């Protein structure tokens, strides 16, 4: 039991500092929910239904800006497609887990959770489970709380501050910190450029065109590099 308790403590201690970078996202999501005119409770439900900051920001910003619902949903799903990599990487570890854990685990598999869990892949199944659920519940509960704080504080922020621009700055930060080789830079520049050129398309569909061409050209650049 004491071993179990120390694993719980470890999971919490590892998760808390990793949550800090997510705080501005949570806050901005709250503000954007208020800005978008979507019912705040419905907007907040994305925190536990989707539980993924980039997809939530994408979906809510696009819905609030008058994009077609189908385009907003597609963009939200594409943003989260990277989780397929996490799922594939964690699948062998989860084969030693009981069935309920194989259902619960994916729900908690956000970027930070993956970063922690992948380091514990060789733990015995029970220790892994204890650690995974401890860190996952920290991320989950802190996310629910901080997005509520954003919604509560959102109306206090004056519209003239144009805080919705913060979404663009946060996304830029994600791109810059994620670029570890030049094909990713190529993908980002092409994605932005093609979206710019197709800005006239209705319902912000240019976003999907830009994203698709960006992924394609990034993949080609990677091939040429090899």
């Amino acid at each position, binding site marked *: 039991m004491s071993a179990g308790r120390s694993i719980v403590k470890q999971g919490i201690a590892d998760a808390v500092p990793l949550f800090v970078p997510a705080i501005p996202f949570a806050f901005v999501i709250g503000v954007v929910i208020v800005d978008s005119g979507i019912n705040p409770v419905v907007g907040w439900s994305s925190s536990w239904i989707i539980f993924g900051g980039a997809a939530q920001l994408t979906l809510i910003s696009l819905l609030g800006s008058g994009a077609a619902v189908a385009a907003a949903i597609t963009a939200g799903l594409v943003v989260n497609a990277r989780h397929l990599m996490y799922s594939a990487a964690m699948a062998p570890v989860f084969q030693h887990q009981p069935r309920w854990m194989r259902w619960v*685990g994916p729900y908690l598999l956000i970027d930070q959770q993956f970063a922690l869990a992948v380091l514990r892949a060789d733990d015995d199944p029970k220790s892994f489970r204890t650690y995974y659920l401890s860190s996952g519940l920290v991320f989950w509960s802190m996310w629910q709380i901080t997005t509520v704080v954003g919604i509560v504080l959102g109306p206090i922020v004056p519209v003239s501050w144009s805080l919705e621009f913060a979404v663009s700055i946060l996304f830029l930060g994600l791109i810059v910190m994620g670029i570890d080789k030049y094909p990713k830079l190529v993908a980002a520049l*092409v994605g932005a450029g093609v979206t*710019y050129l197709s800005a006239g398309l209705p319902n912000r569909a240019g976003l999907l065109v830009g994203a698709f061409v960006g992924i394609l050209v990034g993949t080609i650049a990677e091939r040429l590099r090899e």
Partner: protein
Amino acid sequence: MTEFLAIIAVGIGTYLSRGVFILALASKKISDPVLVALQFVAPAVLSALIVALLIDSDGNVAIGVAEVSAFIVGGAVAYKTRNHILTLIAGMGVFWLVRALI
């Protein structure tokens, strides 16, 4: 109601993207070309989103000196510090400053 359904749709899709291999395809591997392409999803989509969010109702990209300055400074701070909070403060700070000046 539409918004709630949209959230549920993205929620289901997100869960499936996190769960599909864990729940169903544990013995399957993602094929190499798909794995290569997946790395470029985040940079391509996020940069496309940045531009898309600046498109106004007439289909023009509403980007001015304030936005460009904020992207340059925010991008540099992100690169140097790898810290989201500092990036946000620097980017928004420059955005507000330049907007106030011009």
